[in-house]
């Protein structure tokens, strides 16, 4: 074995350039794997955080019929006495806030916006006292101020404001159906513009005070949802069950963020699969490169191979020698790839890549506004390093097998 290892590594130095070219293919594949894995993990981590911080919270209490009809945003399928539930949650030291979510038409007036127009919007009426305890809009204010209770005012997401040409101090009108089906027009002043890191929210955000919406829409104190913030390390599923048990008999349901964000999670999974396929192809290309290098190395050494077989070296030992040699290329490539991967990881973890210009006009599903940051993943590095060596070594098996099919006299005659 010692001889086989020594021979394999000496042979690696025989064709330095070829070894390095093949190793660089492995290195590239490995680096890409580490880099893309880090980027995807980072994007997923940030997306999940931004989802919980700005969209779904950790969990949500809804009227039990609401979720099925959520796209219509029905005000009649509401939580009739949200304050009673909030008190019970407060008693359990669970941070929560009520909201009214409703759809309407946002009407732009000529005076402020230069031309008239309208667009459909989703509006959140928030409890201005408690909402920042659950959602993280606290540090997203770009201009103006936050909402105050009872005022006829809205805050908008910065992309939304940019799209409609809104500025602080402008007035808009929102026409919506109130609880009971009547139409209500609300004249509201834009008092603030928020720059939210979640692009989905930033693109559509219209927020107004809860009590203002309550008046206009005749909600009579009802809310369409109560959003809950759980500690970072909480087991969401068991907390959901616990809160659900608390609410027994109220015709309400509690949903964890994962249930609400099913679409995002499925999309992330699909992206991971797609990227996995691309990385698999990169590895296949690297593997073909190694296989080709080994094929050349083996066929240039056919006579040597014949000599070794003549002298009584068993075929499996010869095969092993070539596999060790290929593993050597794998080690060189994997080491280079690991170093490059760590370098690339360092860049994407510390600096990130700014995709703002792409994300501004395109919805990629990720809840990241612009800068994609990576996540260190030592396990991926270890796995990729081992895979680089194992794959390299395995792909040498087939060309060696082919060469060993030749009879010994043919090997010795080989030119």
């Amino acid at each position, binding site marked *: 074995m010692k001889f086989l290892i020594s021979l394999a590594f000496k042979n690696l130095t025989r064709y330095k350039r070829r070894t390095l070219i093949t190793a660089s293919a492995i290195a590239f594949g490995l680096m890409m794997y580490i880099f893309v894995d880090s980027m995807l993990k980072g994007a997923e981590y940030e997306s999940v955080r931004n989802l919980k911080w700005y969209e779904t919270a950790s969990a949500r209490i809804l009227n039990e019929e609401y979720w099925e009809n959520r796209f219509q945003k029905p005000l009649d399928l509401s939580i009739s006495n949200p304050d009673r539930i909030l008190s019970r949650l407060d008693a359990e030291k669970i941070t929560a806030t009520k909201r009214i979510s409703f759809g309407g038409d946002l009407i732009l007036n000529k005076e402020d916006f230069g031309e008239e127009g309208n667009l459909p919007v989703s509006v959140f009426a928030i409890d201005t006292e408690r909402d920042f305890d659950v959602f993280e809009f606290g540090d997203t204010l770009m201009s103006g101020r936050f909402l105050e209770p009872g005022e006829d005012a809205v805050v908008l997401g910065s992309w939304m404001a940019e799209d409609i040409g809104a500025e602080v101090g402008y007035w808009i009108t929102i026409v919506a159906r109130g609880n009971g089906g009547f139409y209500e027009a609300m004249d509201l002043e834009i008092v603030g513009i928020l720059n939210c890191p979640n692009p989905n929210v930033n693109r559509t955000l219209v927020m107004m005070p809860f009590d203002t919406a309550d008046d206009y829409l005749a909600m009579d104190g009802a809310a369409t949802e109560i959003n809950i913030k759980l500690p970072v390390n909480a087991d969401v599923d068991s907390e959901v069950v616990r809160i659900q048990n608390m609410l027994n008999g109220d015709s309400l349901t509690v949903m964890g963020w994962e249930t609400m964000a099913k679409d995002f999670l499925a999309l992330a999974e699909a992206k991971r699969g797609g990227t996995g396929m691309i990385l698999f192809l990169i590895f296949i290309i690297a593997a073909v490169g190694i296989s080709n290098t080994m094929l050349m190395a083996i066929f240039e050494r056919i006579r040597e191979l014949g000599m070794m*077989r*003549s*002298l*009584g070296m*068993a075929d499996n030992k010869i095969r092993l020698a070539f596999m060790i040699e290929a593993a050597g290329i794998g080690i060189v490539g994997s080491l280079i790839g690991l170093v490059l991967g760590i370098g690339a990881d360092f860049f994407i973890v510390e600096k990130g890549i700014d995709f703002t210009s792409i994300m501004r006009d395109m919805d990629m599903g990720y809840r990241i506004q612009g800068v994609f940051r990576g996540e260190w993943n030592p396990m991926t590095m270890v796995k990729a390093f081992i895979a680089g060596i194992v794959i390299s070594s395995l792909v040498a098996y087939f060309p060696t097998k082919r060469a060993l099919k030749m*009879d010994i*006299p043919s090997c010795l005659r080989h030119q």
Partner: protein
Amino acid sequence: MIKVENVVRNYHAGETVVKALRGVSLEIGKGEFLSIAGPSGSGKTTLLNLIGCIDEIDGGEILIKDEKISTMGKKEKTNFRRINLGFVFQTYNLIPVLTAYENVSFVLSLLNLSEKEIQERTMAILKEVGLEGMENRRPSRLSGGQQQRVAIARALVKNPEIVLADEPTANLDSDTGKEILELMKEMNRKHNTTFIFSTHDKMVMEYASRLVMLHDGQILSDEKR
């Protein structure tokens, strides 16, 4: 020690059958220094390959130390070669990345000997073939004659009973060729190893103590000297 009994070997080149050996019979005793001679295509290398258990017999039988070659499986043949046979090739076939020492010692590493024994035997045989002090040279830093000496050392280091050499001097100038033949002869005397070598060179034939002439796959003459 070696009995070749009516051996037939055919090769197929497309639909054409080339009869390389047509019923060759021969007995070779221990310690002989035998040359198989003949023109190109006479079957010299084929006969050597068959005795060396690296080719398959189509008819007849070869017995080495009373063991039938035709009944041996691939693994058995490999084991048999590893223990009993040494090979010297026309083009030396040394491994270029290994030193002279490593090229010789690797044969012993196949026999699972201890490091100490491998070292002692390798150094001893390298000294015998006149390569003392050149152990660490790679083949590229050795002359043709020196490379063939390494190959002879590699063939002899495991003390095989038979050494097969296919045109061992064909790539060497005549003086170096003579030196190699003298060395082989010396080793044959010293170790009582059976040497069987092929050649078409008359000068080389002169060194043989027995000369078997082949022509068109048949023995033309078998002359002891």
